[in-house]
């Protein structure tokens, strides 16, 4: 699988200098499918690569710069809109990484603006954002109600002029998930950047990335999440502080697995992997040389797992029945 080639080159960029044309195509297709082309391009900057590959990589770096500019502007607009509420605005994920100048932000693809606000401020935030030009994108009343009752974020909104999406979080996992992270603690310990935007503390950034990857979702785009985690772990000075933090959020097991996976995929490759870890690695590296999911059944299994993580069985059955009647099909 070319997911394997992609992680090998990200881990050891010198490997790119000896690739055939066919392998370059596989590498580029896999990197684009995993939305890691900008990260790859930054990693390979300055290396001796064929001219055609150099052009693609230069495009990737330029695109990442544009992403960063847009993301920071969008964060600026959200701060402007939320200013009158006089509360901290905490950027998360890609926007936070580029705003704070972290390694994880170098070349990173950034789709939506993710922010975190205190739960009791949600109504005000929603009102202010609607007034400032953001609009709902989930017209379905069931989806809307589901978000409000069970999710860790408001239903997504898109700005009608800039066409960018905002996700307003009040915690980092759906309320139905088993771990119950301490969102209040995360907000209290967030760090202010010059200019007023805030980001989560270094330890909470890891906890959020780990929760996002391993306690929620089907590991689609997991290679990028794991790259984030690898970079964020490098920024940690005191490992015991990180583990105390993960324990407080109920994410200790997730953190240790994430560390093993990061080591096995992007690191020294010395950690001992369990059978389950190996299944995760297989899922993570399933992209083939044409950018397709080369292990569809495994993907389906993780899709089922993502729903079991997200809600208890009886609730899941009711949810699937509702979705099925509305015409939704997983594949």
């Amino acid at each position, binding site marked *: 699988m070319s997911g394997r080639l992609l992680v090998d080159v990200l881990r050891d960029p010198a490997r790119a200098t000896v690739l*055939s*044309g*066919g392998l*370059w*195509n596989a590498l*580029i*297709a896999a990197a*684009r*499918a995993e939305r890691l082309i900008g990260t790859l391009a930054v990693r390979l900057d300055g290396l001796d690569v*064929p001219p*055609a*590959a150099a*052009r*693609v990589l230069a*495009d990737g770096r*330029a*695109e990442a710069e*544009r992403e960063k500019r847009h993301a920071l502007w969008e964060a600026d607009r959200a701060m402007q809109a939320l200013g009158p509420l006089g509360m901290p605005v905490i950027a998360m994920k890609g926007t936070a990484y580029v705003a704070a100048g972290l390694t994880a932000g170098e070349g990173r693809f950034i789709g939506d603006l993710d922010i975190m606000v205190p739960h009791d401020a949600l109504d005000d935030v929603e009102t202010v954002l609607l007034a400032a030009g953001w609009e709902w994108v989930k017209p379905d009343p069931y989806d809307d109600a589901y978000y409000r009752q069970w999710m860790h974020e408001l239903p997504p909104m898109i700005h009608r002029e800039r066409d960018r999406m905002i996700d307003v979080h009040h915690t980092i996992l759906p309320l139905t998930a088993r771990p119950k992270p301490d969102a209040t603690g995360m907000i209290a310990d967030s760090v202010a950047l010059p200019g007023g935007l805030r980001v989560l503390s270094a330890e909470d950034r890891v906890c959020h990335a780990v929760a996002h990857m391993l306690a929620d979702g089907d590991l689609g785009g997991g290679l990028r999440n794991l790259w984030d985690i690898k970079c964020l772990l490098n920024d940690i000075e005191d490992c015991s502080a990180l583990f105390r933090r993960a324990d407080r959020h109920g994410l200790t097991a997730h953190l240790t697995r994430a560390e093993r996976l990061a080591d096995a995929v992007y690191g020294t490759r010395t950690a001992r992997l369990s059978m389950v870890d190996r299944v995760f690695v297989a899922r993570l590296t399933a992209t083939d040389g*044409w*950018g*397709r999911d080369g292990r569809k059944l495994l993907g389906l299994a993780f899709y089922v797992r993502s729903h079991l993580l997200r809600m208890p069985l009886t609730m899941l059955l009711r949810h699937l029945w509702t979705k099925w009647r509305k015409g939704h099909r997983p*594949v």
Partner: protein
Amino acid sequence: MKHRITLTIGPATFRLGSPWREPITWLKRLYADYPQQPDAIADFTVRLDPAGPLRRWLHPSVRIAGDHMLADAAPMALRHGLLAAEMGMNLQMALGWRRHLLIHASSVEKGGRVLVMTGESGSGKSTLAALLGERGWRFMGDEFALIDLDDGRILPFPRLVSLKNAAIDVMRAEVHDEGRFGPLLFATPKGDIRHLAPPRGAIGRMGEGAPPALLLFPRFGADPELRPVGQAEVFVRLTQASTNYVACGERGFDALHRFVTAVPAMAMDFPDGDRAVGLVEDLWSQLS
């Protein structure tokens, strides 16, 4: 991928893969005069994926996929596979190309200067470029005009001309080499379509750019008439006709500004191909 082809059109190289043989066979035939190096490093990957688990064999239908995709693209019948491949390549350019400012326009060259024609689908810009390409002009492209971000020259992107409906017969009367035509794709989402390979000379010179000299907004189906178009309107219409104007940022603005202030623009109504060619030749001779 079972069947594949790598081909270069102008400055872009595409790698296409398909589980079915037919679309790739047609591409190989119609792009026979273009560089086709199997091991070339491609700018874009295009896939013709089966539209569902059984759709490779049962009512075979194609979902256009690749590096850049549209989430809600409707599947197409396999007999329209060649069109799907062409749409797939267009999609990559429209969503992913950043090395030039991309304008949805056709272009032809004569005497080292370029005529650019832009307009909605159905305006006749594509057919007109194909016609001029058979009548002493160099065909540069019927879909995208690439504007160099530094020097403002137009670069060719001479992919297959996509002839729609009545345009098919117009070009059948013009081109007598049957080998340049693709299959008749009956009742596609865009009507009947037949692809036409550009003249060999145009393909041979697809690396050669030239400065723009005239911009036309053709409109098929009205009495012949020419009207000048103001720069402000031209600017706005070209931002709408560009797929990457915003993504190109300040350089895109500068390139478009240079184009709009340097190149005269006219709206041209025409009732048929012959009179359109006459109008274009008249305008061109008055330019110098």
